[in-house]
């Protein structure tokens, strides 16, 4: 059914349709509206057969999820940023144990400096924990990926993170087609665990594994993610058959067939990128884009196929490998191993800085004429940076960097872009 609603609300409805049995929640901006939504549904009885537990920390949230999932219940939670870090130990634990928990990440920057706005640093911080990480481009896709996510998690016995841009998607009102219960039931069967705590058939879960077997256990986890590379497209195809629309999959190429410049990005910024691609195509540029939906497992082969014919690839990322440059770029570079083409890393949108059509158009134009640096920070205020560096070189006791910069920038509350 078509609705005009907030992204978080749509996600909450999608999760409810998946018949979860245990949901645990700890509030953190910007995912709060999601868990509030589900919480209300449980309390009012709209979502039956589900227990909603208010826990005392994110660490507790994922811990409760681990217990519930190990005991055979379909389990869900959500977090962002600092919260994801606070549950980091449990994140690795859930993946290592192979528990099919689905968790929404309302993507938000990680501090310090503390920042509540959108970027991908939180999901990236846990990229190697063994969870599947899929990124939604729109709120419709956010809805769809949760439904696909539960099936993916349970078929593989692997937890899944559905990454949804904080504020840009979670708090955006857009048109969404929320499926019916019958449609979801036809797609998502009841949870049949591979391992379960059951007095009738006792098992020990969570043994200590030493050097003699650790490698094999870890190899199997890696192998599982590699299997996901085929399962994810299969589920996307099955989803299309059941629900009638394209959603999920590994990557989404846009006008790449004869493109000389291809832009690669994750999440909602792909929408803006496609608008710019259309504008530049109309002006004669041979440009296209690829949205990566499955970041883990990383789609090396699919990316290679999509990118190899281009002259240059611009990876636009909302995250930063401090001291190195790009994170997504590393994966893209690996996908293009052995192929000679120009690769550019653009760090953009950190801490919620707007990525504008105008900036992107200039950026892509510069890339087209190969006038771009290897690593660019989009819309970096060079004056502010220069000033701060100079200040720090003059004295020792320069005070907190962030505060100094904010003072220099002045009132920002009403800035538009």
């Amino acid at each position: 059914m078509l609705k005009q609603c907030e992204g978080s609300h749509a996600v909450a409805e999608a999760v409810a349709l998946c018949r979860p049995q245990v949901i645990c929640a700890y509030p953190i901006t910007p995912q709060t509206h999601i868990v509030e939504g589900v919480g209300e549904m449980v309390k009012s009885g709209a979502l039956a057969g589900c227990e909603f537990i208010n826990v005392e920390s994110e660490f507790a949230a994922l811990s409760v999820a681990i217990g519930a999932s190990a005991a055979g219940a379909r389990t869900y939670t959500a977090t962002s940023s600092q919260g994801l870090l606070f549950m980091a130990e449990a994140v690795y634990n859930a993946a290592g144990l192979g528990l099919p928990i689905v968790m929404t990440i309302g993507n938000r920057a990680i501090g310090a400096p503390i920042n509540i706005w959108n970027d991908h640093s939180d999901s990236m911080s846990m990229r190697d924990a063994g969870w599947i990480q899929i990124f939604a481009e729109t709120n419709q896709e956010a809805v769809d990926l949760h439904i696909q996510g539960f099936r993916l998690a349970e078929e593989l016995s692997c937890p899944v993170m559905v990454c949804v841009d904080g504020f840009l998607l979670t708090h955006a009102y857009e048109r969404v087609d929320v499926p019916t219960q019958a449609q979801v039931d036809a797609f998502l069967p009841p949870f049949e665990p591979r391992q379960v705590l059951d007095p009738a058939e006792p098992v020990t879960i969570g043994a200590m594994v030493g050097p003699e077997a650790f490698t094999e256990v870890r190899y199997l986890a890696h192998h599982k993610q590699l299997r996901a590379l085929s399962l994810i497209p299969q589920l996307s195809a099955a989803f299309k058959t059941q629900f009638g629309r394209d959603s999920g999959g590994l990557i989404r190429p846009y006008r790449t067939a004869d493109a000389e410049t291809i832009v690669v990005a994750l999440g909602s910024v792909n929408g803006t990128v496609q608008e710019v691609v259309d504008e530049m195509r109309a002006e004669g540029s041979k440009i296209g884009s690829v949205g990566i939906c499955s970041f883990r497992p990383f789609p090396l082969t699919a990316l290679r196929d999509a990118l190899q014919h281009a002259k240059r690839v611009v990876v636009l990322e909302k995250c930063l490998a401090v001291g190195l440059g790009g994170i997504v770029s590393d994966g893209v570079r690996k996908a293009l191993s052995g192929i000679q083409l120009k690769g550019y890393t653009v760090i953009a949108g950190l801490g919620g800085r707007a990525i504008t059509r105008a900036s992107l158009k200039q950026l892509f134009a510069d890339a087209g004429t190969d006038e771009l640096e290897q690593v660019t920070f989009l819309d970096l205020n060079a004056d502010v940076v220069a000033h701060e560096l100079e200040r720090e070189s003059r004295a020792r006791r320069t005070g907190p960097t962030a505060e100094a910069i904010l003072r220099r920038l002045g009132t920002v509350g009403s800035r538009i872009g």
Partner: protein
Amino acid sequence: MNPPKTRPGASVTPMQAVKFYQTGTFTVGNRLLAEDERSVQANMQRTNSLNSGHRACQGCGEALGARYAIDAAMRAADNKLIAVNATGCLEVFSTPYPETSWQIPWIHSLFGNAAAVASGVAAAMRMKGRHDVRVVAQGGDGGTTDIGFGCLSGMFERNDDVLYICYDNEAYMNTGVQRSSATPPAARTATTMAVGREPGNVFGTGKNVPLIAMAHHIPYVATASVANLRDLEFKVTKAMGIHGARYIHIHVPCPLGWGSLPEDTIKVARMAVESGLFPLIEAEHGELTGRTTIRRKVPVEDYLSLQKRFAHLFGKTPDTARLTQIQAIADRNIRTFGLLPE
């Protein structure tokens, strides 16, 4: 015991009440007790939830306490119990991959979240309509009083239907005997060495988690000791008859960490109880409902001198000041909980 009635017409001389002494376990033996009062361990059909073959040290108080506690819980739960275990000695020595000593469904959580994981298991059981399956969480003092404290308090506050059992050997033993907030004053550990002006763990620090549990007003809180295994079984059984958040704190000597002899484990535990340093109490919804009185009070030295971790208090020049402080703690416990009969 009431004195026997006088025969009619007999002279009214003062009768001396006869005292019958109990010696820890019922000396009359299991066979003269009702079925449900007998020790689980006396039953050939006991579940042996923590089976033999685990790798605990000789004389490990925790292995003993866990075996008694979980078997009692299993009996009370009609053998339908799921156990969640924090990282620690118990978890490590009971599951040396590829073996496991657990005969029941068991999951190792993480260090700080046994209470939360157990809450999740309990929720799953409820949602699956398995109201017959009960949940127990286990952790050492480190995993309970320190790193697990947040999750523990959360579980208490929500009144989740979990019995949390803390095996308190008063330090992080599995990692090499480091101090925890359960480490008693003056005790030597690897991070509170017996050197300097204040040798051993400093006075004025530490947490009393049973009292904190009581402050949450949960349905049942109890302390127990491997010195009185029947009392331990009784308390576990009683707790299993209640729904909601329950907490049992068991004192379990660690010969290795305490520097006591493996064969002295139960004796040391008894000295702790009889000196007043480890009170045996019960509470419901925040109010004290029971305590075991001390049969034969012993000075704290009798307890401390059995353990090398307190050796620096003894020797040619005993540290009378600190011994006096420790005695004061014991005496205060006795006063507070009424541990001596009037």
